[in-house]
């Protein structure tokens, strides 16, 4: 059961195509898991379509229909659409979107350590304003307490973690902004794997890590 969802702003911007690629990917991942938000998202697309129908039509060039008709012949073979799996977990246990970003096996990913219990792997989405990363937190391990200089979106892929405000399991979606300060801690029984999207580096409030703050850079690509 999913308990934490993207808000109306994020869902609308996702449905309308206004959201940047990395956060949009994160919202799309949540929709994989959440029937309620899928319905909401469908309704927001209906809203988009209702606005679309009200646009003032603009004349197209006279020959455009003929051009398109001719191209239907040329391209009689339908393009083969890749059909990403619509179930929550693809073959490797991760949603198809994550697998596409991993470009291979989970085992081959290039992880960086952050303390004893946390590993980070940044994945390239093409979004130059937002960093998209996988976080692997060992059972009972924590990400040192931090606040944010911008927004942080988190989606749980596997296991669960808790912070000062609640407990989050697979499919749960969290948004934290500059005012929030938290210490995500994986539950004791198993490791937790999440997707995190940042639009600015975090700021550690845990004194053991504060010295690193001036050197933290967003690694968006």
């Amino acid at each position, binding site marked *: 059961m999913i308990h934490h969802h993207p808000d109306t702003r994020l869902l*609308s911007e996702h449905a309308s195509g206004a959201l940047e690629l990395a956060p949009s990917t994160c919202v799309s991942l949540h929709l994989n898991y959440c029937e309620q938000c899928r319905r909401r998202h469908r309704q927001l697309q209906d*809203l988009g379509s209702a606005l679309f129908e009200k646009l003032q039509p*603009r004349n197209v060039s006279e020959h455009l229909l003929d051009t398109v008709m001719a191209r239907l012949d040329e391209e009689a073979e339908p393009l083969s659409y890749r059909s990403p799996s619509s179930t929550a977990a693809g073959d490797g246990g991760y949603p198809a979107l994550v697998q*596409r970003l991993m470009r291979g096996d989970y085992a081959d990913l290039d992880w960086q350590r952050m303390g004893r219990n946390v590993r980070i792997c940044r994945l390239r989405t093409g979004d130059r304003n937002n960093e998209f990363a996988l976080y692997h937190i060992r059972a009972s391990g924590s990400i040192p307490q931090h606040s944010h200089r911008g927004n942080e979106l988190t989606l749980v892929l596997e296991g669960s973690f808790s912070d000062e405000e609640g407990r989050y399991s697979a499919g749960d979606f969290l948004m934290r902004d500059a005012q929030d300060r938290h210490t995500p801690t994986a539950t004791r029984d198993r490791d937790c794997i999440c997707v995190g999207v940042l639009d600015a580096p975090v700021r550690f409030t845990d004194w053991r890590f504060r010295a690193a703050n001036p050197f933290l850079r967003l690694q968006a690509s």
Partner: protein
Amino acid sequence: MAITDGPDTSERRDDEWSQCLELVGARRDREAFARLFKHFAPLVKAFALNGSALAANHAEELVQEVMIKVWQKAAKYNARKASASTWIYTIARNCRTDLYRRLQKFDTPLSADDIWPDSETTELFTSVQMKRDAVRIREMLSAIPHEQAQILAKIYMEGKSHSEVAEELDLPLGTVKSRVRLAMNKLQLLVEERGL
């Protein structure tokens, strides 16, 4: 924005477009495709011109791309799952997003079809509910005050984020958010949120 049809006519016409799409899908019916083209191509062009300046410069290319996709994907169209205009609108949104990212030279392994996968609904039993939702949204939209509708149009048709809309209209971000919330509330689309 010119409002042309009342809800009754637009619903009837939507059935007509759905039938056309089904004819294209099942029988590769070119005449039905031409009818769809005449109605939707000018809307797709308007949608392209509403987008970023980059995409607007390629408006007719976008129309071609969208209409060809309509032809290619029509066999997948299911009238019980979506109205024709919602289906075509989502293709237009996907193509415009991809075009923009292509023009911006995004180096990405993801396409719009990955971000918005087709098979979002498998639950056929909800199709009646879905149609009802769509009709309700269309009807309620006319009852929304201009200052709210204008913002929705900027988000959905121009593809702008809330912050970009705030900047453009010279309004505080909080005002934009609250107008969107008022509109969504009216449309019964508001999600319960953490105290924002």
